[in-house]
C-alpha cells in the first residue's frame, strides 16, 4: 500500500452519510426530480423524522408552537429549510471532530462548513441557480471533508508545507499535494466516490479551489469557490491555512461580480453568522 493509498483508506474511518440524506443529494442533482419526491423521502424516514422534530422543538430554534410531524415542520419552515436541516444533521457527526493539523478547534470545521454552505446557497439564489441551491449547499457543506482525514498527515508534514507556502509561493493545497502526494480537495472527491455521490457533486467538491483552469468556467463550482473565499476573508473558522489559496479574478468576472457585489456578500455573510450560531448549537 502506498502512502497515498494509506491516506485514502482513512475514508473508512468517517461516519457514512445516512441513506436518506444520500438519496436527497442525488435528487438535488436530478433536474427531473421534484420537491415532492424529496419531501416523501424525508417524511417516511423515522430517524430523520426524530432528528428534525428534536431540532425544531428545541427552545432555541424559536418556533411558536410544538411540532409533531415532519409535515408540520415543512408547513411551518418550508421544505427548503427542512431539507437543509436533514443535510446538516446527516453531516454534523463527522465535522464535530477536531481535525489535527489545520489548527482548528473543536467544531470549527463544522462552523466553516455551515457558514460557507449558507453563503453558497444565497449566492446561488442571487445568481440564477436557485434550482440547484440544494446541490450547491451540499457541495459547500462537504467540500472540506477531506481535511478530516488529511489532518494528521498535515500535522506530521506541517513544517515542510509551511516552508513551501511562506517561502516558495505555494498555495496550501498545492503544498499538501507536493509534500503529502494528495490534497484535501482530491480526498474530498474520493469520499464522494466512495459514498456514491453524483458526478456533479463530486466535481464541485474536487474543484472548489479552482486549481484546474477548466473548472473556472463552471458556474456552480464558482459559487462554492466564492463562498469559500468570503469565509476566508472574514476569518470564519479558518485554520493555519488561513488565506493561503489562490484568487482567480476571472471567476468573479465571468459571474459579472463587481467589487460592490463582493463587499455586499461579505457583509451579508457576517450578518447571517449570528443566526447560524444558534443553528450550529442545535444540529
Amino acid at each position, binding site marked *: 500500500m502506498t502512502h497515498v493509498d494509506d491516506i485514502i483508506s482513512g475514508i473508512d474511518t468517517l461516519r457514512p452519510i445516512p441513506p436518506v440524506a444520500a438519496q436527497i443529494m442525488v435528487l438535488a442533482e436530478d433536474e427531473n426530480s421534484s420537491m415532492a419526491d424529496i419531501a416523501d423521502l424525508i417524511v417516511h424516514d423515522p430517524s430523520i423524522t426524530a432528528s428534525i422534530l428534536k431540532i425544531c422543538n428545541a427552545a432555541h430554534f424559536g418556533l411558536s408552537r410544538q411540532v409533531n410531524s415532519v409535515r408540520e415542520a415543512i408547513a411551518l419552515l418550508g421544505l427548503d429549510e427542512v431539507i437543509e436541516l436533514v443535510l446538516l444533521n446527516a453531516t454534523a457527526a463527522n465535522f464535530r471532530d477536531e481535525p489535527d493539523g489545520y*489548527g482548528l478547534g473543536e467544531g470549527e470545521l463544522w462552523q466553516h462548513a455551515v457558514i460557507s454552505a449558507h453563503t453558497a446557497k444565497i449566492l446561488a439564489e442571487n445568481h440564477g441557480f436557485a434550482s440547484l441551491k440544494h446541490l450547491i449547499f451540499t457541495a459547500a457543506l462537504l467540500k472540506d471533508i477531506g481535511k478530516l482525514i488529511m489532518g494528521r498527515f498535515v500535522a506530521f508534514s506541517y513544517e515542510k508545507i*509551511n516552508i513551501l507556502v511562506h517561502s516558495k509561493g505555494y498555495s496550501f493545497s498545492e503544498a499538501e499535494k507536493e509534500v503529502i502526494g494528495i490534497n484535501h480537495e482530491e480526498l474530498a472527491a474520493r469520499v464522494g466516490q466512495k459514498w456514491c455521490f453524483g458526478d456533479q457533486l463530486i466535481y464541485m467538491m474536487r474543484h472548489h479551489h479552482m486549481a484546474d483552469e477548466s473548472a473556472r468556467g463552471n458556474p456552480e463550482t464558482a459559487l462554492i469557490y466564492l463562498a469559500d473565499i468570503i469565509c476566508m476573508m472574514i*476569518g470564519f473558522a*479558518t485554520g493555519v491555512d488561513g488565506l*493561503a489559496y489562490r484568487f482567480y479574478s476571472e471567476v468573479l468576472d465571468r459571474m459579472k461580480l463587481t467589487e460592490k457585489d463582493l463587499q455586499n456578500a*461579505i*457583509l451579508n455573510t457576517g450578518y447571517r453568522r449570528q443566526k447560524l450560531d444558534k443553528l450550529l448549537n442545535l444540529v
Partner: protein
Amino acid sequence: MLNAHISHQPVSVMTAVNFGELKMSHNPAETLVAFSIGSGIGVSIYDPITRCGGLLNFVLPDSSMLSPSKAHIQPSMFADTGLAALFDALSDFGAQRENFKVVLAGGAQIIDQTAEFNIGHKNHQAITSLLKAEDLTIQHADIGGIFLRTLRLDMSNGDTVIQTSGQKEVTV
C-alpha cells in the same frame, strides 16, 4: 447609536471582540481580544493616562459604497463608521487624542488577489487615511500576508499583543 459594550468587571476576564464589533473597557483586569482577523482589520486604541481603551474589528473599508442603513445597524462593520464610533466611545471615557496608542493588525489577502477585489489592502488604505486625517500616529501596524491574526489589548497596561497564525506573538 453606538454598538459598544462597556465592561466594569472586577475579576480577570477576556472579552471577545467579534467580526464587525467594537468593545470598550477601563477595567484593568480585562483583556479585549479580536480572534481570527482575516482581510478585516483590528484597531486597538489605548489611553495610558485615563487607562481606557477600545478594540474595533471592522471588515469593510467604506460604508458609503454599500447601504448606509447597514452601517447604521452595525457601524463597526466599516472602517469609517467604526472608527467614528470608537472615537465617540473613547471620548465618553474621557480619553484624550494626544495620548492615543494606536495599533493595527489584519488586512490579509488571498494569494494573487487583484487590486479591485483586494479587500484587505483597501481596508488598510481606508483606516490609514482616516487616522491620518485625524492627525493620529499609528504606533504599530502588522498588515497583509496570507494568514489570520489575533489582536489582544491588555487593559492593565495597554500592551497590545499580535499573534499571527503559526508565528510567535509580538507585544507592542
